[in-house]
């Protein structure tokens, strides 16, 4: 009898506080599994954001710091400069990374900071109750865009992976999603490679993961996956934007 799948040792026993069907949990698993499989869990230091994943420090089975809203890349920079031989990662949502923390993420990439960022894009502010994010789609209703996001009023959603891929210091940039087992396997491959990028000392690495927010989108978990496929993927194309090995 062989184990096909069991809970990762990279996660603590603390149950996730996430809403039913929220794919944050899936992404947490992939990060934890990647750290374990690369043999670096004991050398890992993570940085949790402000947002739905604010309590991520309770879930990863490694040393963690909790950062101010948007500042996780700066905090991770401080840690990495002190411990260049450790594996340092930030885990951030779209409000954290694509709004209040744009300066910090752009400059972590620009310095080629040897950290890994896991960027969870669910097109909404989850923790504060479903307000509009920079990644909210045009027409999408949120509590602060009650008539739907109006492009003329507040612009179109920002594509962070494409933006960051223009920066030389960003050596690995990929957008993935976790809507099916096949896509989860692809996402895991990307997350693992983003850690390899850091371990090899290549430079900054980021994986953007398209994620759901069933509660604030107002769907069941399964309908939320459909909405992600039908609306998010067409606007946020999946794929690799930058790899540290040519031609990959």
């Amino acid at each position, binding site marked *: 009898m062989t184990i096909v799948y069991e809970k990762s040792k990279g996660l603590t026993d603390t149950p996730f506080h996430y809403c039913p069907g929220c794919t944050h949990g899936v992404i947490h698993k992939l990060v934890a599994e990647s750290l374990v499989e690369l043999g670096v869990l004991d050398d*890992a230091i993570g940085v949790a954001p402000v947002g739905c994943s604010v309590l991520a420090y309770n879930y990863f089975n490694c040393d963690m*710091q*909790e950062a101010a809203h948007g500042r996780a890349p700066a*905090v991770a*920079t401080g*840690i990495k400069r*002190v411990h260049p031989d450790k594996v340092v990662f930030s885990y951030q949502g779209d409000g954290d990374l694509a709004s209040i923390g744009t300066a910090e993420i752009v400059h972590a990439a620009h310095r080629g900071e040897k950290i890994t960022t896991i960027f969870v894009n669910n097109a909404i502010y989850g923790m504060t109750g479903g307000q509009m994010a920079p990644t909210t789609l045009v027409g999408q209703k949120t509590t602060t865009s009650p008539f739907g996001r109006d492009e003329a009023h507040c612009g179109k959603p920002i594509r962070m992976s494409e933006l960051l891929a223009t920066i030389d210091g960003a050596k690995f940039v990929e957008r993935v999603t976790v809507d099916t087992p096949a896509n989860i396997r692809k996402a895991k491959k990307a997350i693992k490679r983003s850690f390899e990028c850091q371990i090899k000392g290549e430079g900054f690495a980021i994986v953007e993961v398209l994620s759901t927010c069933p509660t604030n989108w107002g769907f069941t978990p399964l309908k939320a996956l459909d909405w992600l496929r039908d609306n998010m993927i067409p606007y946020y194309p999946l794929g690799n934007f930058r790899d540290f090995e040519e031609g990959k």
Partner: protein
Amino acid sequence: MSKILMKGNEAVGAAAIKAGCKYFFGYPITPSSEIPEYISRKLPEAGGVFLQAESEIAAINMVYGAGGAGARVMTASSSPGISLKQEGITYCAGAEIPCVIVNMMRGGPGLGSIQPSQADYYQSTRGGGNGDYRTLCYAPSSIQELVDYIMLAFDKADYYRNPVLIAADGMIGQIMEAVEFKEPEPIELPPKDWATTGTGGKRKPVIVNSLYLQAEELQEHNKNLEKKYKVMEENEVRYEAFGLEDAEVVCVAYGTTSRIVKTAIKQAQAKGIKVGMIRPITLWPYPYDIYKQIGPNAKGILGVEMSLGQLTDDIKIGIAGRLPVYFNGTQGGMVPTPGSILAEIEKIAGGTK
């Protein structure tokens, strides 16, 4: 060790390196830019890392990360830059991360001026960031004190697991004086077993954090912090004071202003007026108790500062209504003159004898 001539801002860097500071994250601003300039040259030689951040906000959050990872770390700036750092300072206070923050104060509010000022007194002593927290705050009045207190600040930060501020006016940063780098007194420091260094598979993970979602837990954290602050109030108050028992007038000033006040006091004494002085060296914790030593001949207290009377509020707390409190200050980057201070002393004393 013999004395060497050094500019204040460069002495900040030299003192930090001597104190074992290995990481500096900063962003240039007048009148403190010589600090990152000096450190960018000298820290790599000492085996440390200088990194110019994209903003003061990023710099203080790098300090948070590095301090939380167990390193001796510093940042420096001037007033508007220190305003931007307040977010990070309150997080450091909440997560109990030791670090040293130097403020070479310039005129405000807003962009203000680039000349020396002491208008960040409230910000330095009342916590510029959110929440109930305190930061130990040294206010040096010479380059020698600047060096001594920066070196001490690293030990105190580690000892208390707390941010420590150096509140110096821009004048201290810009002038040159002879300075001696003395060996710091050895102090026993607790191990940094709370720092994120990677578990190495040898211990349970640690979490550096200022979030306590349960009100009861946060209150307990607040009360624990308060206990620490009380110990600091008991043990860390520093001041210089003289002539209080028989003073007719007591002057209170710190930093550059205290030096000008001393000149005015000499001039007043030459005219037969008995003048005492209190010079807070720690702005927090503040030396309130020293006011009890002011004798019965005193007619009033004069606060002199390069701001609109922020220190003077603490004088009022210290004297507790026993004597009238007067204020003589300059703003905007103007520096007080001994003549104006002397005139105020004479007025309070009731004229020359």
